[in-house]
């Protein structure tokens, strides 16, 4: 016996490898006792197995035929998938040629190829943004930065552009792992570009709201210096307290006058800060204190100072005009 156990094992392994596409159950059924069978064959004569039985791949092909499993037969699901892929590829090639003239080229692919340098630049910018984001994650924006420095970002961008152009002129010839690396890198940049878009979009919309809320650009309230509250009879209400729907005091304006003590009143939730500057009605002499000193007239009920209710201390306004009549501006 000239055939070793190792030779039989190797032969069986290669037969099984050649049948790798069969369902595992069928393959096992076919090759289950192949080692024993080959040992019998080996015992019957001289010569290597390959010389007597042919190459393992041919042996596997013969087994496959006998088992009724034709070569390359794949599960129906995979066959349909492959067929659909072929049909899609044909459609794409057809569209490629049909739509080409729209872009002034024989094929759309030619047009896209002419756009490649633009992609190389875009890619460089994205790469610079990505590196910038990695060195300084707090900042986001459309300008690359290197460790927060805009100048460093420009240098980074320049390097990225040169590298990207260099890569673009050579990537066609890539095979093997450089090609895979190139594909993975491209995929990363595309995903990153999505995140840049989302980020920019979010910043753009938040700019809009924060601008109005915090800086009051264009708001009518940004020029308010003081607030004057009048009651139904047109009398100025002193020390009016303003609250929003949540009970939070509303702060508007700033004291713009000098009170009796010769100091600028501190901002507080008691309007107006400067009653003497009231726009309507007879100018009110500066009241020394917010307490009720004058005899209250009209409907306003006098209350202790400090109460949130308006204290009607002011003299009657111009006339007992109906509330619908606009008071005449004093100034």
């Amino acid at each position, binding site marked *: 016996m000239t055939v070793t156990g190792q030779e039989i094992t190797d032969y069986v392994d290669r037969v099984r490898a050649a049948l790798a596409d069969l369902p595992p159950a069928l393959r096992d059924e076919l090759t289950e006792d192949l080692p024993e069978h080959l040992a*019998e064959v080996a015992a*019957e004569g001289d010569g290597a197995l390959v010389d007597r039985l042919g190459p393992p791949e041919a042996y596997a092909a013969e087994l496959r035929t*006998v088992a009724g499993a034709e070569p390359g037969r794949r599960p129906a699901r995979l066959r349909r998938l492959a067929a659909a892929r072929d049909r899609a590829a044909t459609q794409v090639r057809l569209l490629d040629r049909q739509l080409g003239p729209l872009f002034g080229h024989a094929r759309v692919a030619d047009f896209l190829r002419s756009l490649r340098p633009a992609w190389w630049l875009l890619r460089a910018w994205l790469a610079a943004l990505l590196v910038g984001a990695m060195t300084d994650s707090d900042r986001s924006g459309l300008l690359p930065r290197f460790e927060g420095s805009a100048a460093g970002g420009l240098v980074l961008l320049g390097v990225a552009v040169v590298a990207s152009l260099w890569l673009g002129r050579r990537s066609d010839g890539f095979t093997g792992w450089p090609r895979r690396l190139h594909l993975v890198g491209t995929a990363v940049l595309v995903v990153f570009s999505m995140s840049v878009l989302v980020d920019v979009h979010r910043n753009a919309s938040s700019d809009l709201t924060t601008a109005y809320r915090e800086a009051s650009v264009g708001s009518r309230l940004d020029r308010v210096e003081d607030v004057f509250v009048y009651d139904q009879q047109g009398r100025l209400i002193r020390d009016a307290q303003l609250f929003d729907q949540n009970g939070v005091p509303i702060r508007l304006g700033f004291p713009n006058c000098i009170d009796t003590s010769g100091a600028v009143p501190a901002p507080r939730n008691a309007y107006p800060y400067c009653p003497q500057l009231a726009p309507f009605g007879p100018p009110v002499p500066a009241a020394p204190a917010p307490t009720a000193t004058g005899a209250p007239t009209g409907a306003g009920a006098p209350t202790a100072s400090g109460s949130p209710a308006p204290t009607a201390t002011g003299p009657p306004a111009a006339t007992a005009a109906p509330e619908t009549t606009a008071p005449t501006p004093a100034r």
Partner: protein
Amino acid sequence: MRTSVWSVDTTQLLKGVLDLAVLAVLKDSDGYGYDILRRLREAGLTEVGDASVYGTLRRLFAAGLLTTYVVPSESGPHRKYYALNASGRDQLTRSGKTWRSFATTMDALLDDRGMAA
């Protein structure tokens, strides 16, 4: 669609009748794989390959037409013998009839047209 014209060759014919041939050589005596291959070749089916016989035996066994038993050998590996069981004999009878009928029909067809060998 692809069209193809089949010329008759032994390999193609063998595919259809290998089951019957293996059952036939096992009719009178049991045999192990290589032994069965030798019998087929001695009977004139020289083109049959080892893989075909091995695969056919596996399939007939899986279909329940054969039984197996192992015989230790003094000078070499154990041998796995195959034997016809009742289903196998039944199958051999039916397939044999089908083949004879088919062969007779083909013979007559060729004879009528003066193409007998």
